[in-house]
């Protein structure tokens, strides 16, 4: 019974995506009435260099912002974890969580105000900065559980055996929390890829990302090459998930062993 329920839920969740993928091959040109199979929309997509630039921009922003956010987030998590006083630790953690739950629209608007006051020109740099900023709390949240899972005696043992602070960090702590780091990175990546609300406020001067572009296209009815594009992006994220799965399989901590 529960299995049927699960299958049903997944069908409902995936149906719109498959519907969209299906119509990306429609020669009819609309989202209703399938007329015949065609690859024209994909061809058109690859000839539209403006759209291609936007896709690549979106990917560069996603990769770079999640990379920086991961690096900063790791240190953030280490910092919060090392807090001795319980109260400070909880306060910091709550502040981190507030950033995750606060509405994107408000974050976006405040970035816009901040960049305006600081005189930062809107464009790639402003988008990158804001994506890094909203990804950091996510990374922190993904890394922290791994840190608290780690036994403190592990660090004590390493110190007793003569490891320096740097050695403890690079040879003991980081390898242990690697799965959390990857999880944080991939979460940040998906957040950045589909963020509309924040990006909408901080794009400008010829730099846009996909979500913003599709939104302004939607006003006049979406052409099927947007379907084609969405299909490709869906496949791309699917590949990412698979890659992530294999990485996390390989990184499964086996007992107490510490890996290089």
């Amino acid at each position, binding site marked *: 019974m529960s299995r049927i329920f699960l299958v049903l839920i997944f069908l409902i969740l995936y149906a719109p995506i498959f519907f969209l993928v299906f119509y990306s091959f429609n020669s009819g040109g*609309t989202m209703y009435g399938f007329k015949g199979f065609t690859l024209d929309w994909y061809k058109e997509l690859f000839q539209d260099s403006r759209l291609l630039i936007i896709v690549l921009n979106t*990917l560069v922003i996603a*990769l770079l912002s999640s990379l920086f956010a991961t690096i900063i987030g790791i240190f953030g998590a280490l910092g919060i974890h090392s807090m001795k006083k319980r109260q400070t630790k909880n306060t910091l953690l709550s502040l981190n969580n507030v950033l995750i739950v606060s509405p994107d629209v408000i974050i976006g608007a405040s970035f816009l105000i901040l960049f305006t006051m600081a005189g930062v020109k809107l464009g790639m740099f402003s988008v990158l900065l804001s994506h890094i900023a909203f990804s950091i709390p996510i990374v922190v949240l993904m890394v922290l559980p791994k840190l608290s899972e780690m036994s403190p005696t592990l660090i004590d043992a390493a110190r007793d055996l003569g490891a320096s602070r740097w050695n403890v960090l690079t040879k003991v702590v980081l*390898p242990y929390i690697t799965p959390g780091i990857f999880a944080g990175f991939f979460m940040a990546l998906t957040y950045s890829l589909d963020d509309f609300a924040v990006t909408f406020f901080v794009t400008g001067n010829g730099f846009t990302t996909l979500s913003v572009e599709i939104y302004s296209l939607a006003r*006049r009815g979406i052409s099927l090459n947007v379907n084609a594009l969405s299909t490709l992006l869906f496949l791309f994220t699917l590949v990412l998930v698979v890659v992530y799965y294999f990485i996390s399989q390989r990184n499964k901590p086996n007992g107490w062993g510490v890996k290089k």
Partner: protein
Amino acid sequence: MRKLVHFFLAIILVSAVLFYTVSELNNSEGYSGRNTLTIYNWGDYIDPQLIKRFEKENGIKVIYETFDSNEAMLTKIEQGGTTYDIAIPSEYMIDKMRKEHLLIPLDHSKLPNLHYIDKRFMDLPFDEDNKYSVPYFWGTVGIVYNPKMLGGKKITSWNDLWDPGLRNKILLIDGAREVMGMGLNSIGYSLNDTNHAHLQKAKRKLDTLTPNIKGIVGDESRLLLENEEASIGLVWSGVASEIMSENKNLEYAVPKEGSNLWFDNMVIPKTAKNKKAAHKFINFMLDPKIAAKNAEYVNYSTPNKKALSYMPKETVNDERFYPSPQLTEKLEVYQNLGKKNLAYYNELFLEFKMHRK
């Protein structure tokens, strides 16, 4: 640790490759040169071939960006972090931008093609003497209906909508000005009327329409009409032409009592970096042949009088989208009513929305 470092290096490498591809693509498109023109327009609202042609003829590269609402555009321009050379807002927004000093006055000596614009569409209240703006496209507010679903019935006036036979069939736009305007027009008042007694009367008239209303909706009316889930809708003519190209059964009517006339105009925001190119582009778009080509692509009505002679007869003679001068006389552009009156419009519209059958 080593694994992490490798992974991060790989990400940096991939980003670098992607970044390089982007800049190569930008270069091959010529986007990096100094002589560029940044245009901020509605999505899919220009024939892309015309942009290519403009680039070729003038050696100016065009960066094209899109917005989806006047308000979004205003935010970006107000904020000042952008460098748009041309924007294409609607009339009420032009009035607002002009008052907030966001626009640069146009140099009419650099726009020799301006005389091709139909006199009917010049010197309108939102921008007298066309000091800041030049018409790009225009249209009306009217009724899309499906004669097949209505048993061949024709709709020509606002008052036809009050027919008791149309119970639960009409979709209205969720806009106070549009709906109140319809009420005012149906009893012979101007849609810019601010007389409270007249407005009350219009609202009471609208209340009697309630049994015929199926819903008060936003953009989704387009799909409902296309898929024949509703048979009558109050829409803008631009939306109408799109829906009608998807569903051939539909008809569009500009009510004979009069209606709203809207405009999207080209303006130069104060953030413009390349005013010379902006004037060149506006003049280019005013060229009759270019305007005709653009109008055929976008499917909206062009204000360019000479352009009509380059367009197919059946488009130009289509009174649904190029109404006769007798009817255009009756069409009115929305005037800025001021905060107080607008609030009163909104209040009445809200009361109307809450009115029960």
